[in-house]
């Protein structure tokens, strides 16, 4: 199995507090990395610094294959989903899904099919602002069904989802892993699905 991501001696500080220091790990294709830690331990900061949304204090992050050295190239090979779902409250579920896909540069996407997959058929004409938090989350998660990126970086993907939604998401994770992808996720819930290669990384926050 090939290495997808290699992280060396990462350090981050926020508001004068060290969140983590000297953090190193690598991720193989087909592996799941579950990042654990208390609230405020720095899980989100770690994920955000992996994709370059937060500047690094120290350390190196290398995406493989390393010819994808250019920022634009590795962006095609990673998919990041944060706490915020990037769903437009004014647009309907269907429009949200279609435009999300087009923003990712895809011209041919069957938005109806995607809505059916995440179980939102019948709600496609409602403005997303009128849907529940879990339903909005499902709209955002449709990206996982057409993404070509081998590395998924997901911050609390199960938030607001019901048990069926969580099962559905984990099925999709399993497909992705089988296809040779890798996932980094944070979650306070234990995964009900047991991937073959599950790495755990615990961030101990609050080191002053």
């Amino acid at each position, binding site marked *: 199995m090939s290495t997808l991501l290699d992280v060396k001696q990462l350090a981050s500080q926020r508001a004068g507090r060290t969140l983590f220091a000297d953090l190193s790990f690598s991720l193989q294709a087909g592996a799941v990395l579950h990042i654990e830690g208390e609230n405020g331990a720095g899980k989100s900061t770690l994920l955000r610094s992996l*994709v*370059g*949304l*937060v*500047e690094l204090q120290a350390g190196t992050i290398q995406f493989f294959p390393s010819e994808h050295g250019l920022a*634009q*190239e590795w*962006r*095609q090979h*990673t998919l*990041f989903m*944060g*706490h*915020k*779902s*990037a*769903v*437009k*409250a*004014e*647009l309907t579920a269907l*429009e949200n899904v279609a*435009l999300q896909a*087009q*923003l*990712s*540069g*895809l*011209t041919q996407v069957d938005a109806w099919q995607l809505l059916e997959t995440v179980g939102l058929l019948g709600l496609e004409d409602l*403005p997303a602002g009128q849907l529940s938090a879990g339903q909005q989350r499902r709209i955002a998660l449709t990206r996982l069904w057409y993404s070509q990126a081998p590395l998924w970086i997901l911050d609390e993907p199960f938030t607001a989802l019901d048990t069926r939604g969580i099962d559905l998401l984990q099925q999709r994770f399993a497909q992705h892993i089988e296809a040779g992808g890798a996932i980094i996720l944070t979650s306070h819930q234990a995964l009900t699905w047991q991937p073959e290669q599950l790495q755990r990384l615990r961030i101990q926050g609050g080191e002053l």
Partner: protein
Amino acid sequence: MSRASSWTALTAIMKRDLMVVMRRRSDILNPLLFILVVVSLFPLAVGPGPDILGRIAAGVIWVAALLSALLGSERLFREDYLDGTLEQLTLQPQALPLLSFGKIAVHWLLSGLPLVILAPLCALLLKLPLAGWGTLMATLLVGTPILSAITAIGAALTVSLGRGGALLSLLLLPLFIPLLIFASGAVEAALVGTAAWPQVLLLAGLSLLTLLLAPFAVAASIRVSVN
């Protein structure tokens, strides 16, 4: 990144912004009504005599345009920031300046272009002599893209500050001074019967330069703001 997918993303972001604003029409209408109200206050304040009004008309319309550009500017990136769209945009494989250009273009379509269309009505309200109408509309046509582009830079810079409205006005208004000088100068020239096109062309050049460079500044500001 292929050219086709960049094009798809650009049209997608423009379509999305247009659709969002079309469902919140007050965002477009309020600044336009604001201009109309400000402009119609002037005859009441300085008296209805055509000699004074006609001379200050172009200046008044332009100042009202500047203020109205600031009126809705906070919202340019606010929603996108709050719902996480900005974060996703910075992570798109497509170039962020290109997407920023899309947002500027939509902002102009919905705030600058209506202003150009509204200009004859404002000119009528202020008794601007007919000789100046064409030039006024020309300056608005080439000048309002500058308004949209520079407002976008300011809005992107202050989007994470919560209430950046007052700061935004202080930051941006001084930058509009050259625009104001050349635009009212052009109309003045048309009114006295000399050639107005040098100023209009200068504004057009300034406009192109701003549109070329502003997307990069907006992109950099967005990156700072989502950090």
